[in-house]
């Protein structure tokens, strides 16, 4: 039965995340925007709390998870009527929306909730999943000479005895300084192309791994963004996530599968951040005497109200596309196309909504007295990382048109 309301059973989870966002993230939001690179120590308290909630079984966690199907969950028995599943993916996007309604940068700085954790959850075997449980893992893909064309990375991993030796330079590693480990993309043999790209878990303190720089950014300043070099950096063989085989038929799919899981999460971040802007702007407009009417034709309302309705309609679309991508993952349905659609729509809507809310609120929106200008800065990265707007459009277009990356470049 078609129903697009957030699942009833996740209401307590969403309510908790909302209270945390309101009472812990928002009060620290401006502070760590101003003092970039200071560690938001309030988050340690929060992380402990989240762990406690997880242990009590009261919540599915507030941060990134992957799309592993639980081993003890065989799905519906044969012959019984199919019924829908609302699981950890929906729970994740819903709680991330709430947290990013609070603060995107602080959500990205949540201990043990890094994007690397999502990669581990998605690609790791059972032994690895157990071994890296509780580790705060960041994700290192981008290099100075390679951004969206991640198949072209030049960081290498060379097998030497029981170790891989990693060499190269990574940039834009979110939580790269604060994390416990970095999931690094490196190639086993550049000549073999995409199929040879594997991900490796490199624990902090491993000799040869050095954080060389922290970036100064437009937004999400409370989140540290690191440049990291790897020089003769040795990790045990079993830290390679997934299969070490270079399967040219499998190609890039294994590594890219992570994105199917993380893109809805980033879309959820944009949705949460934009909702903060919409809610505050609506209240500011009401104080200014503008009432948004859902029944009167927009042509008969003020330009501000008409603009607001258009922004809210785009937001609604981004929200529902995100829930759909997560719902498909919960039900074991391939969602690569839908994940990219969600990321594309939410990414551009995030920027559009937050920027136009600044405009609607005038200098009140532009000033640091309010958070509208900050949300307009924070949201920009969400249309860039985990695949830019243009990369999402490429993925959607290739899929719809049945074209290869050689045909549609």
């Amino acid at each position, binding site marked *: *039965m078609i129903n697009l309301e957030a*699942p009833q059973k996740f209401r307590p989870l969403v309510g908790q995340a909302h209270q945390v966002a309101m009472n812990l993230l928002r009060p620290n939001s401006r502070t760590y925007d101003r003092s970039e690179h200071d560690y938001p120590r309030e988050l340690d308290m929060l992380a402990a709390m989240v762990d406690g909630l997880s242990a009590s079984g009261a919540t599915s966690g507030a941060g990134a998870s992957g799309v592993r199907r639980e081993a003890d969950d065989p799905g519906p028995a044969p012959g019984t009527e199919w019924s829908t599943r609302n699981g950890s993916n929906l729970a994740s996007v819903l709680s991330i929306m709430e947290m990013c309604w609070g603060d995107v940068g602080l959500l990205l700085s949540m201990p043990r909730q890094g994007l690397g954790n999502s990669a581990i959850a998605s690609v790791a075997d059972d032994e690895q999943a157990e071994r890296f449980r509780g580790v705060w893992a960041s994700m290192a893909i981008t290099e100075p000479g390679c951004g969206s064309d991640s198949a072209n990375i030049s960081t290498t991993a060379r097998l030497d005895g029981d170790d891989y030796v990693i060499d190269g330079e990574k940039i834009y590693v979110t939580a790269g300084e604060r994390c416990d480990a970095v999931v690094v993309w490196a190639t086993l043999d550049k000549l073999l192309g995409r199929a040879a790209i594997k991900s490796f878990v490199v624990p902090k303190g491993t000799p040869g791994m050095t954080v060389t720089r922290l970036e100064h950014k437009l937004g999400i300043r409370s989140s540290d963004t690191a440049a990291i070099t790897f020089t003769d950096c040795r990790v045990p063989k079993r830290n390679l996530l997934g299969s070490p085989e270079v399967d040219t038929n499998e190609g890039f799919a294994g590594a890219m599968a992570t994105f199917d899981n993380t893109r809805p999460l980033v879309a959820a971040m944009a949705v949460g951040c934009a909702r903060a802007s919409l809610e505050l702007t609506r209240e500011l407009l009401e104080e200014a005497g503008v009432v948004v009417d859902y029944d009167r034709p927009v042509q008969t309302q003020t330009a501000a109200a008409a603009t607001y309705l*258009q922004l809210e*309609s785009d937001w609604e*679309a981004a929200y529902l*596309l995100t829930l759909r991508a997560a719902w498909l993952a919960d039900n074991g349905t391939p969602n690569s196309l839908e994940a990219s659609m969600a990321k*594309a729509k939410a990414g551009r809507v995030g920027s559009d909504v937050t920027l136009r809310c600044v405009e609607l609120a005038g200098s009140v929106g532009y000033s640091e007295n309010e958070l509208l200008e900050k949300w307009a800065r924070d949201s920009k990265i969400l249309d860039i990382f985990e695949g830019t707007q243009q990369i999402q459009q*490429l993925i959607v277009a290739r899929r719809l048109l049945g074209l290869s990356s050689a045909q549609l470049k």
Partner: protein
Amino acid sequence: MARSIRSASRHGLTAREKQDPIGVAVAVLNKIASSDALDRFTPFGLNLRTSTERAVYEATRSGFRTVGLANRQFQKVADRGRPVRVPSALGTGSFDLTPTQDEQMLVDVVTELAAEVVRPVAAESDAVATAPESVLKAGVDIGLPILGVPEELGGVHAERSAMAGTLVAEALAHGDMGLAVASLAPGAVATALSLWGSEEQQATYLPAFTGDDVPAAALALTEPRPLFDPSTPATRAVRDGDDLVVTGTKSAVVRGADAELFVVGVELDGEARLLVVESGSDGLKVEADPSMGLRAASLSRLVLEDVRVPATALLGTAEDHVACVRLSRLAWCALSLGTAQAVLDHVVPYVNERVAFGEPISHRQSVAFMVANIAIELDSMRLVTYRAASRAAQGKDHAREVALARRLCADRGMQIGNDGVQLLGGHGFVKEHPVERWYRDLRAIGVMEGGVLV
């Protein structure tokens, strides 16, 4: 100059334009050049007007005419104050995009109808501004008029069917929006009677819709003026004893000339209300009003001049009028989904096959990204519309969701129609391809009030 509603005579000129003597002379020349006499006495026997254009032209020109040649007598039934009300669907509380088995079966049937009966006659129906009997009958045969009528009153559903109605409208509009509107119009009136009718109204009118000989009927809410707001209709009903006397003009009335029953939006005592008006009423006239698109729906204007109806013809309350406007907008959103999907289905093979500069144009990002965005925005429209529909079916407040769906479907749906023509270039501008029709049809979303209802 009086602004009669018949006046297409200003030719899009604003009131600031003034004729000078040369202008007057040119206007006289134009009058001579465009007269019928010129057509009849064209040298060399040339006649530039095709028969179909002439038919539309004549229909438009013929102006007012009284309806009522084939009106049936609706047998009045006494009211015992026990109207049937449709219960809401019970939600499961889970996020789910899977239609019920009943909905899916219905969609499959309508999809087949749209592909095999509707689409093949869409271009011709558009040209002659008429829905063929074959399409209308096929719609009746699969039960379109009783989709919103509860079992108890001879319909099919035990509970609120706004979701099923949405899925059906979408599937039908994939065949053709104009024909979908023509086919769904009687169901809009039957649904309104089911949702808000008194026992007398339900017993008097619904049997005609649940039988074999379903009357044409129209839900008439729109009026012909800029910035029209259905909550403040200019069509007024005034109390006169036990009667109401109605005066005003409604526009975008689906198949008005054929309709035997209207549900009309009127102002009464400062509130917008719905009123049941039979087509045989004195003072009621219909004028053909061919428009940019939806031509197969034979849009018309309904002119009411001192039309007298009993006060019992009021349908529902002022709140029900608000609900009616919302559910009608929702139906238009559903229609936009089908037509926008038709655009996407048409452009994908086209851009893959069309070669320019030595390769398919789909190999260029500027083309491919337009296609990607059509798909992204179409799914956006679909999900927002479905949310509104599922809330309506479950009896949840849906004012916000309908408003957002209407905004999105009007904006993005039109963009999809626009891009559909653009992707085909010159081929999109000519009637060799259906994209120009979809372009015209998709402009209706955001303009229309009434006509269809889920």
